């Protein structure tokens, strides 16, 4: 009916106003309300759960929070800034030792070790990120992998400080009497508090100017640079922030386990974490949580399926998830929620 449909389509698009305008903010508000409702329910469940579960399951949930914390950092680097790291576990280990050593040597209060661990990891991230972030893709992956590989022998070597292969055994934080909580519940709530603060911090960071710069770098490095975004500065910063969250995770891990040894932080940890965030959902807010559930439960499930080769089952499960949900479990959950909403609206 029209001799040039393309041109009319384009020109109406440029002068259009009205119709779509009203719908967009309303839809956004709906999404926001939906999100807050889900977050509120989750938080309620998170507070309620430790009173309903046996200590071992409370411990497992605590570890989910620890992994979520670590994955939050990795998501910042890989999901939001678009840089690869195969050495995230190294910063987790640094946080663990930066917690364990002051606890073992000077018997400092547990809470003091959190800023120490986060701070040491951040500074180390800054120092290593400065040269590493000038590299791209495969080279960056190799350098970060090297960091993870060299860490274990390094920890074993400085035996007087790190306890060598024997590791260090530490006191766990004791629940204050007024709380009436058991040890496992207290540890859980400590982890929950740290995780909540960290998720809030990361969300704020990503909404700011810094977040916009990271997304720009991820989506189109060259275009970001001609807009004035200093690439090396922001990549280094993203690396350091991701290290900070890994350090905090290592700290809470040490509180919870009460023991560190180099063999808890072998290269597999870094690779498992990377797999975790990819499976969980890169660049998604819920990605770290889904990834943490995967990292925590899937290896033990694979152990049950096949005792001889749990690694193989784990690998196959990763492939299966990526096949069904290329945007990760968070993306899958989002799509499920969308179709649920559609069905509810229709019915």
């Amino acid at each position: 009916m029209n001799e040039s449909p393309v041109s009319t389509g384009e020109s109406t698009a440029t002068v259009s106003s009205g119709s779509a305008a009203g719908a967009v903010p309303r839809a956004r508000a709906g999404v926001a309300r939906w999100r807050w409702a889900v977050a509120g329910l989750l938080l309620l469940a998170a507070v309620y759960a430790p009173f309903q579960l046996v200590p071992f399951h409370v411990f497992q949930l605590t570890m989910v929070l620890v992994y979520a914390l670590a994955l939050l950092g990795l998501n910042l680097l890989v999901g939001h800034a678009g840089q690869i790291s195969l050495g995230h576990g190294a910063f987790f280990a640094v946080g663990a030792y930066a917690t364990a050593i002051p606890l073992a040597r000077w018997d400092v209060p547990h809470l003091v070790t959190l800023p120490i661990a986060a701070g040491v990891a951040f500074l180390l991230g800054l120092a290593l990120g400065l040269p590493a972030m000038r590299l791209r893709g495969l080279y960056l992956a190799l350098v970060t992998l090297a960091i993870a590989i060299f860490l274990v022998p390094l920890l074993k070597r400085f035996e007087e400080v790190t306890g060598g292969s024997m590791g260090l055994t530490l006191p766990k934080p004791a629940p204050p009497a007024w709380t009436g909580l058991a040890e496992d519940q207290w540890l859980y709530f400590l982890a929950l508090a740290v995780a909540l603060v960290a998720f809030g911090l990361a969300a704020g960071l990503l909404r700011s100017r810094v977040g916009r710069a990271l997304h720009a770098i991820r989506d189109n490095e060259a275009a970001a640079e001609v807009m004035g975004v200093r690439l090396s500065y922001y990549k280094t910063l993203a690396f350091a922030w991701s290290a900070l969250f890994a350090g905090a995770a290592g700290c809470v891990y040490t509180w919870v386990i009460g023991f560190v040894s180099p063999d808890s932080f072998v290269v597999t940890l870094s690779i498992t974490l990377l797999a975790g965030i990819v499976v969980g959902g890169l660049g998604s807010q819920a990605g770290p949580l889904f990834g943490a559930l995967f990292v925590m439960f899937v290896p033990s499930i694979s152990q049950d399926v096949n005792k001889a080769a749990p690694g193989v089952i784990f690998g196959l499960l990763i492939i299966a998830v990526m096949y069904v949900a290329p945007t990760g479990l968070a993306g899958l959950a989002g799509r499920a929620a969308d179709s649920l909403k559609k069905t509810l609206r229709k019915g």
Partner: protein
Amino acid sequence: MNELVVSELHAGYGGAQVLHGVSFTVGEGEIGAILGPNGAGKTTLLRALSGMVKGRGSVRLDGVELLGSSPDTLARRGVAHVPEGRGTFMPLTVEENLRLGAYVRRSGVDADLDRIYGYFPALKPRLKQAAGSLSGGEQQMLALGRALMLRPRLLLLDEPSLGLAPLVTRELFRIVRAINEQERTTVVVVEQNAHLALGIAQQAHVLETGRIVLSGTAARIRADEQVAQSYLGYRV
């Protein structure tokens, strides 16, 4: 003031030289058109002006040397480049894209957003939409708007008409002209669509295999039938 003087500019990629001593001038607040066939080096020229590729020679804006500075430094000095392919951040919203354009400044960003909606009213209702969901014409408007957020002294446009319908292209060039007149921004526009570019430019330069083979006022180049046939490939 914001006169652009390019002289003896050599640039390329690794060992491959693409520009072999390019010289031209765009007057303060004027529009200079760079015309030429595919592969002539037009994109490379703009990349050299914005620091994306290294160059030898001299590029002065308001008498200050631009060559040798990094792209982010040049952005801070007021060089805005709308690259080939527009450089839109597809997953980000329209508003986030615009705010990224003002990345080098912290103040006056909201006022500048309003200024952009003045030029591109179509963008306003789409602020919260992902940039990837815009039509080609709207994306080019967004790219131009994003460049304006920098409050540029020098605006570099790489084939803004590419892939757009004729009507949209004409509208776009009208806006470029309006921007140039109202903000006194010096503009370098690279185009294969010579007709439209010559319509808004004062001076035009024809680039062929890395050399300027012809320079003159836009009116003269447009009038010269032989030029039109041999260099621009169309009949007037």
